[in-house]
């Protein structure tokens, strides 16, 4: 219990003193996860809309696999990306292992199934409502996808937030592909693991509180942005 209190005190102190190293680590956490989130959304949203609108043979199988991959173990993703990017792996020449880029790649892989699954769920419901209307208007396939994605934007925001949550608190994959190098690939979660390893529980906990605070702040910010447009149904 003493440690918990110490952690809280230290978290407040670290933030109040605007510790440069902490700011650096926190910014890197945000940079990695937000970049991964943007890439993952760009892949997952069109995929989800496509799966909602189009009917083809492998559709159910793909949806089932996407749903199953929501629980993809990050540490396995990390290991696979690691082996691919290692100097002795197929993409070794790129020299990407132990860089923030490698961490982003791993997080994109972790986020895409989750975001696509959640997005697909709401797009499918919306598609049931819109189906007859859009068909009768004889719109193109591309217009259908765009209409669905735009009108479901609130639900897509939720999907994106779920992806963000999965990425920002993730440690298994980024520890393996990033290597937790000071000033290069150290982020909040790996720093917490490191400090715990040193037995510095108060500092580890302080970093944890900062991570939680950061997650809440990002969520609030995005919600606030979402509510600024109130016209229409959504």
């Amino acid at each position, binding site marked *: 219990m003493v440690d918990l209190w110490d952690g809280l005190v230290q978290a407040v102190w670290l933030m109040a003193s605007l510790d440069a190293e902490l700011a650096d680590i926190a910014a890197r956490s945000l940079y990695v996860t937000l970049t991964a989130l943007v890439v993952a959304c760009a892949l997952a949203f069109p995929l989800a809309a496509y799966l909602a609108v189009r009917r083809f043979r492998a559709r159910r199988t793909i949806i089932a696999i996407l749903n199953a991959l929501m629980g993809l173990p990050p540490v396995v993703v990390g290991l696979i990306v690691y082996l691919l990017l290692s*100097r002795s792996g197929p993409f070794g020449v790129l020299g990407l292992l132990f860089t923030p880029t490698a961490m982003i790649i791993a997080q994109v892989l972790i986020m895409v199934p989750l975001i696509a699954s959640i997005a697909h769920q709401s797009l499918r419901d919306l598609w049931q409502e819109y189906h007859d209307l859009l068909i009768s208007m004889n719109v193109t396939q591309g217009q259908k996808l765009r209409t669905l994605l735009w009108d479901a934007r609130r639900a897509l925001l939720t999907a994106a937030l779920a992806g963000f949550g999965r990425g920002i608190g993730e440690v298994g994959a980024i520890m393996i592909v990033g290597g937790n190098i000071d000033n*290069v690939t150290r982020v909040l979660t790996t720093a917490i693991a490191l400090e715990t390893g040193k037995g510095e529980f108060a500092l580890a906990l302080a970093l944890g509180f900062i991570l939680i605070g950061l997650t809440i702040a990002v969520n609030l910010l995005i919600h606030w942005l979402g509510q600024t447009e109130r016209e229409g149904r959504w």
Partner: protein
Amino acid sequence: MRLLATILLVLWPSVSLAENTMRMAVTTSFHNSGLADVLLPEIQNDLGLEVQLLIVGTGQAIKLGQAGDVDAILVHSRAAEEAFVAEGYGTHRREVMYNDFVIIGPAADPASVAGVETVTEALQRVAEAEAIFVSRGDDSGTHRKELSLWSSADLDVEAFGPHYRAVGAGMGAALNTAADMNAYILSDRASWLNFGNKADLALLFAGDPVLFNQYSFLPVNAELHPHVNAEAVAALEAWLTGPRAAELINSYTIDGETLFVFNATSED
């Protein structure tokens, strides 16, 4: 979306692809001891070289060196190091410094390890008392040392009951586990001294010459991995084995205790 992009742009840290950087895989004990934090800024000062550390066990450090994912390794497991050089993955092995392993255990010492003559006897007592013993279990230098100590005490870890607990973790994490279980554990002295969560644990046994722990620097073979920054590695090796490193390593103390002793020999 546009706002998100703006936020990203602001946050985008200027990814500094510094011209002179190298990667070195080091053992957890080297980093947990705090020595890395003393040496790295000095290296940056003297050589203008940014050394990026990957903190892993000796087993993984050697793997990283074999794959060419690092430029050099600093580890402590002689047999594995010699194999690394013999197989052509490293160019040579250069001894830098040493410290020693110690046996940590509950201050109450239920297995009465304190005061025995040899580490063999100490381990035999732990085994006889069936006291809880936490093993690193991660193929690190410390883990390999521990296994060799058990076998030279004529004890087979495979045959141990549930009191022998392999945690598969780094030195600090294993010490945390031991602190929580009030267990015995083999640690290097530096990690122990710098450890923040000692709880009821105490240093019970040290001083047997068998517990000598040599750290060596091994450059990764640039012929095998052409992308290795051989120039920086050579500069780092010269620095690590030079007078400046000697002074810093020998004067690094925690609570008045010396952690490492510099023992690099000048270029032969």
